[in-house]
């Protein structure tokens, strides 16, 4: 803080290591603790932020964006608190919130020019950059159309374009793929993968496959806490041996649905149904887990299982390299080994 008190501003360029440190931040709203003592360090690459609704993802992102103050803790970029970096932090920052607000009277052109001015892009670079992004996001044809008249997917792409305008070092996107059709999502993922080289990109999504393919690391939040962090492979390993597949007669599906945590089902040509489900063990064909399996394991919709408890259990059994984080910054080894009830054993081809 001496540099601040003395009015000496350290040069961000000198300290350049591109690192966003989230240090024990918490945020409460009335009686709800939206973010609870979250710590993590974001480094270049695409980071996926996973969690169910109300997990605290958006609140965390808003604090990173500097539009919400944490009650406790601090967020630092390259070692400097973002609150003191002010405009210099915003200069290297791109943000797409969950709800993309815009002025109804704006055309795509008006909006992007307006955003470019606010981002401080020189006039001479503005048009070139806008054209690049329009091309990249397939928006060239609607350049002069009012945003309000665009489809949901197109609006979302305009939102993505504004976030990318200043070629930010740090890009935060909250549910960027919502409203995009599968083709658009694939294009977006490719665009983001290319863009994320030497940049920090944090995206939150419910669509696990979006981050599965492109995220270099993932963070999982539940009830305001960061409960896991690691690469997709590391996280997926947590449900290794817990994902099964079998084919059942159609008439027995209700019974299986009651007993098992089915993550996918497909009608087969012979009238039977192929199911993919999660269970500690089963007399079925084990299949390679995916990130979506982990997500569903951690966030069961119909059971009251505690995800942290699940992780404690997994950590005990796997001793994997993945970082499992407790509410107060404990690692997995600090957590108790109480086993949580998992899915019951499933059946093989019946």
């Amino acid at each position, binding site marked *: 803080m001496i540099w601040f008190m003395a009015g000496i501003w350290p040069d961000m360029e000198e300290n350049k290591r591109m690192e966003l440190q989230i240090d024990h931040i918490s945020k409460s709203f009335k009686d709800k603790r939206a973010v609870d003592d979250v710590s993590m360090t974001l480094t270049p690459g695409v980071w996926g932020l996973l969690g169910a609704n109300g997990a605290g993802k958006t609140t965390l992102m*808003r604090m990173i*964006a*500097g*539009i*919400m*103050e944490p009650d406790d803790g601090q967020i630092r970029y390259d070692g400097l608190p973002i609150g003191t970096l*002010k*405009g210099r932090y*915003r*200069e290297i*920052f*791109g*943000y*797409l*919130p969950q*709800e*993309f*607000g*815009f*002025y109804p*009277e*704006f055309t795509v052109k*008006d909006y992007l*020019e*307006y*955003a470019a*001015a*606010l*981002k*401080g892009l020189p*006039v001479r670079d503005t048009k070139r950059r806008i054209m690049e992004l329009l091309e990249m996001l397939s928006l060239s044809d609607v350049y002069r159309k009012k945003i309000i008249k665009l489809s949901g997917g197109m609006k979302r792409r305009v*939102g993505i374009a*504004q*976030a990318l305008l*200043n070629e930010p070092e740090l890009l935060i996107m909250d549910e960027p793929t919502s409203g995009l059709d599968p083709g658009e999502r694939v294009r977006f993922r490719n665009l983001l993968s290319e863009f994320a080289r030497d940049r920090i990109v944090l995206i939150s999504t419910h669509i696990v496959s979006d981050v599965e393919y492109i995220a270099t690391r993932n963070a999982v939040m539940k009830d305001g806490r960061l409960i896991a962090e690691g690469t997709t492979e590391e996280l997926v390993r947590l449900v290794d041996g817990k994902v099964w597949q079998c084919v059942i007669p159609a008439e027995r599906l209700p019974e299986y649905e009651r007993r098992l945590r089915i993550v996918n089902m497909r009608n087969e040509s012979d009238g039977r149904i192929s199911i993919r489900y999660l269970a500690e063990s089963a007399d079925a064909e084990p299949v390679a887990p995916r990130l979506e399996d982990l997500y569903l394991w951690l966030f069961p919709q119909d059971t009251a299982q505690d995800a942290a408890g699940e992780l404690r259990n997994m950590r005990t059994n796997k001793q994997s390299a993945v970082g499992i984080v407790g509410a107060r910054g404990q690692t997995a080894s600090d957590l108790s080994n109480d086993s949580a009830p998992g899915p019951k054993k499933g059946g093989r081809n019946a």
Partner: protein
Amino acid sequence: MRVFYLELKRIVKTRLTWILLLASLAMTLLMAWLPTTFVEVDGLKGLPAVRRLKELQEDTAGEVTPEKLKAALSAYQQCLKEYSAETANDLPDGVRTRHILPLTGVLHGVNEVYADPDTGIGPGLPNIDPAGLDDYYGDCRARLMSLMRMEQKDHPAARAEAMRLYEKVETPYHFYPGFNTDALDYQILLGFVLTLFAAVIAAPVFSSDYQTGADDIQRCMRHGRMALGAAKTGAVLLICGAQFSVCMVLFILITDSLFGWETVATSVQMLYSATMLADMTVLEIQWFTAGAGLLSLLATVSLTAFLSARIRTTVAALAAALFSCVLPVFVYFAAPASVGLWLRALIPSSGAAGVQTSILYTMLDYDFLNAGSLAIWLPEAMVIATVLELPAFAAAGVRSYIRHTL
């Protein structure tokens, strides 16, 4: 500057702004023309009536000297005597038009100046001795003194200040027939309507961004806080200020062209009270009303921008802004006298809101803000307050926007 320009462009391109700007223009044209339609003279209506009135009263145009007043009053009384009438109303229409109407303009205020000092009731023109008008302007001062003794009984400083202001009033007064106080009333009414329109334009300036979520994105941008906040406030002030200025200039140009440019050289004392404290002609009071109205409007817009920065929804911001516009009217009728005066001085929209609470009507009154041995005439206090409030609310609005968190 680029952000300011784009923000200006954005607000101007908003459909609501366009509609209100066009409506302002239409209102201006309509309200500038309407006062001419109220003039009725000798069976004529509208502009022909204005021309007829000028013809009838042209002999009394110019300086209002005591000699001219004495001659006019004598002629007035002579006419009544000839027709054995007690008042002008008892005269046949044609006689009244030919003999009395030419004198009424210049005799405006005589009845008031010779009112009973205790009751304030005028004696009526037939009962005033023309010979007593030799020191008409001295009598005006004496009338003001007695009036101030009634109005500011416990405030000698206010009485002294009123006399000091009146000493500056140019005498003899000037009178050029044809102008109509309805035109000034309509100017005030137009100012009020424009202030309401401005409040509607300004109310969403920050709150709509909060409501739509546009704010979330903008405040993450390099110039999305201080610069954008200042640009938004500046743009809305410029648009509303320009709207008001253009409309007021247009109104005055049209009005004065319709009534005749020579008529606006009339002293305001020849239209309103003979002891009015403002040293102005009609043209000067038109510009002063427009200028003070502009300051009031800008201060109101500034307050509206501040409210908009504090309130999360457009509807609530609009309701608060419109309430602040009509607040002076409530204060005028409901607040206790001295508290009401202080509130009227402090509420930014006071100068432009309503008719009775407007800067013009406040200038017709003898209200002072009294603080110990200090007294300040209410219209002066209102103008000073708006000059201070304009930057204060603008800065507070920008600060609120910068610090806004959900």
